């Protein structure tokens, strides 16, 4: 009765078959891998806890970066492709500030105050760079077709990366070590690296502050109004441009802080360090439902934990050598899976298909 051609039916069939095959494959890998790993008992409980703690600290950094993606998307419906580079600028400014503090000896006598200052400095620099970027490369393109600001953002991303490469060279900078922050703390009988705890605590503190700003201040209310409807908001006397700039600045400040925290864990800074965490934080934002601030936090944590536990839990016992090399692939596959099967994310409200 329908005049569907054979090739059409074939593609329909292939599409459905492929999607189901993909789902089943992923579920099989996860289930079988987990079963085999747990039954083999290769890892002790302490190791698992260690994985999870690493995951949480890594995830809280992703969450901080993801906030910027989510907030900008919420207001402009635009993926700020250069956000990963903003994170990188934060790491660099934190690095130079911390090195200076270390050379004066201040850092080792007052590690927490020194760290706080480094973070604030990084936040300031990142926020100002982001505001400049918004003014030069994004604002004139508001209202153009969607592809145009995205490509401009890709341009910004390259510009920032290679400007920093030009400024500071292609090498990797080793972060100064702060003696006071070395070693473990004992929490509930578990030895945990001090840095990791510091990272998690500061990240959560920052997120709490941001949440307060967005939910309870006048500016936050204006932001939410603009994200609902720009035109109506401007009719209500809200300065939309100022709100947008503030959003960029806030998101960038979070990313800048994340840059310092990231460098605290990994101890190195380089011009290309922004790309991978950037994409992963975007994944986290999508995972939590883009445009949704608590979602970004949850998404970041889930991604961090999965990435840290995943290789050992799912991949190792199904015969994959050195599964840690595929750590990044786990994040990317998750990204594709979410876009495919639950585009609105875990806590999602908005749907990506109509993006």
């Amino acid at each position, binding site marked *: 009765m329908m005049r569907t051609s054979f*090739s*059409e039916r074939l*593609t*329909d069939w*292939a*599409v459905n078959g*492929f*999607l189901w095959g*993909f789902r089943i494959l992923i579920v099989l890998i996860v289930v079988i891998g987990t079963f085999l790993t747990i039954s083999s008992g290769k890892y002790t409980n302490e190791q698992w806890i260690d994985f999870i703690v690493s995951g949480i600290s890594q995830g809280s950094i992703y969450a901080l970066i993801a906030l910027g993606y989510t907030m900008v998307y919420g207001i402009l419906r*635009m993926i700020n492709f250069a956000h990963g580079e903003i994170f990188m600028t934060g790491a660099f400014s934190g690095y*130079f500030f911390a090195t200076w503090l270390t050379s004066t000896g201040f850092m080792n006598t007052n590690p927490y105050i020194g760290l706080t200052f480094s973070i604030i400095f990084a936040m300031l620099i990142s926020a100002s760079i982001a505001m400049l970027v918004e003014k*030069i*490369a994004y604002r*004139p*393109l508001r209202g*153009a077709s*969607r592809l*145009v600001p*995205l*490509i*401009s953002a*890709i*341009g*910004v*991303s*390259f*510009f*920032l*990366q*290679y*400007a920093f*490469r*030009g*400024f*500071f*060279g292609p090498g990797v900078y080793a972060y100064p070590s702060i003696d006071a922050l070395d070693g473990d703390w004992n929490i509930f009988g578990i030895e945990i690296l001090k840095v990791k705890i510091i990272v998690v605590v500061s990240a959560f503190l920052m997120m709490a502050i941001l949440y307060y700003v967005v939910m309870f201040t006048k500016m936050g209310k204006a932001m939410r109004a603009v994200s609902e409807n720009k035109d109506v908001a401007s009719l209500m006397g809200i300065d939309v441009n100022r709100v947008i700039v503030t959003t960029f600045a806030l998101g960038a400040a979070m990313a800048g802080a994340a840059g310092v925290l990231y460098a605290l864990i990994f101890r190195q800074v380089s011009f290309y360090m922004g*790309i991978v965490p950037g*994409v992963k934080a*975007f*994944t986290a934002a*999508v995972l939590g439902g883009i445009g949704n601030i608590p979602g970004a936090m949850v998404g970041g944590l889930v991604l961090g934990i999965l990435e840290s536990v995943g290789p050992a839990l799912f991949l190792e016992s199904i015969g*994959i*050598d*050195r599964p840690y*090399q*595929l750590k*990044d*692939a786990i*994040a*990317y*596959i998750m*990204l*594709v899976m979410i*876009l*495919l099967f639950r*585009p609105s994310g875990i806590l999602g409200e908005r749907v*990506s*298909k*109509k*993006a």
Partner: protein
Amino acid sequence: MINKNNFLWNAIKLGLLGGTIGIFFSLVGMIEVFSKRDVIENVITLGDFMLLATAAISGFIATRSQTNSKTITTNLVTGTLAGLTTGGLLALFVWVGSQINLRAVFLNASPVLFDLLTYKKGANGAWLLLEYGALAGLIGSLLFGLPEKTRKPLTNTILFLFGMALFSGLFRVVMINQEGGAAKLAKFLFGQTGLTLSGAFIFFIIVAAFTSLWSGQSKKIQGSYARLPKKGQITVRVILIAVLAFIAIALPQISGPFIAQVIVVVCLYAMMGLGLNITLGFAGLLDLGFVAFFAVGAYTVGLLTSYGPFGLEHISFWAAVPIAVLASMLFGAILGLPVLGVRGDYLAIATLGFGEIIRLLAGSDFLAKYFGGPQGIIGIQKPCLGTLEQFVKIDVPRVCDGLEFAGPKEIYYLALASAILIAFIAWRLQSSRLGRAWMAIREDEDVAEALGINLIQTKLLAYVLGAAFAGLGGAIFTVLVGSIFASSMQLNVSINVVAIIIVGGMGSIPGVILGAIALIGLPELLREVSEFRYLLYGITLIIMMLAKPEGLWPSQTILRELKHNEIMPDTESPNIKA
């Protein structure tokens, strides 16, 4: 009071902007690197030229944007002031550099840079900066003051001269290769890295004379071409094509392997560009993982032909290419399937993820048994026209009894032919039913579907055909390099391809080719520039989006439209007549 001096303040602002840009160039390392290349030998280096141009442009723009009064004096004062401010800011930068050790943070704030900026005269040099800045600003405002008729040929001449200077090393090498008179002439005109003073002088006269005579002639020639009878037009075209073909065939023999290699790389990127042009330019699907298809093509040919440890079949290149293209098409379908429903920005990130997954898998130890892991695949058999001797044992290349495409000079023909073939296919597809369906999807997916277009099938075909083009590019890349490493399949390659399309003009086939030449060819030829390639890409992408989002060579429809408007201005009576 402030209002009255508004134009001065404006000039200072623009001057400060110019100075900031100058400092940026210095800190990023461009000035230092570019100073190693002359524009005119012993007179002006590229680095100097850059700074002077910055000051001159800020002078020009300041003059143009000042609205108070257009008298010559205010114009000149504005321009000079802007240039002076630019120079002043640079001088301030030099002074700061002499007071604190900027190098602790900025790698390029080295003594060499400050010597360059001050012409090795220390503090006195800073004054020189002011003088030069003011002078350049003055020139900028003078340039503005000139009537259009003189300004245009003059700027064109300067730009041409600049271009000649950049490529003079190239011309020199090619001409010296010819020996005899050509070599002598080359040494007279071209220095090692720039024009000689005499060369610059001669070129200036020739180009200036040519441009002033030429203005208006091009229309006449077009007119006389149009007046030719149809047969005559065809003859002219055949002659033109024959000349072009002759140049294309003879080129690598004259120019040597370096230029041939550059052209091969341009061709490869043009092929990838034309492939992505189908998915992005025609169908509007932004793919940031396009390198994946290139990788599939490369790995397929590598695995099938390599005489190294990972070679599987040891078949000839010619048999492997169709398989490689089919494999990339299959991958196009596989990667296209899951992202069919994903739109816009999300698609960009999802495909980026795919590209990275492919790279990670190819380079992982997990699959190292098959793809060589980080060590890659080496020992790839070169294509051979003639009989290929039997495979003997691992690590021994098979002997080619005939013409072997051993180096860039031979692979040049392969790449050029493939690029032309692909451009032809793309051109035919563009004006076909399928091409229109793609464009409809790009413009409005829902409406396209409501007009009976099967989105799934049409989008998949865009992925599949785009992938096929990239796969062929990958296949040729493999034999050019002779080895494959997962690390050469970086995200940067995908971004390069996107940049090519954006700069050239989305959906425009000649635009893509132009984009490949501009973005890949030029940096390959100018080693100094290639160091800052991605920085310049970034700037280019932003500027293109701000100023010319349709690209350098926009697609046919838009051109036709422009023409249409010229011929008949819009006179429309909006009545429906039944």
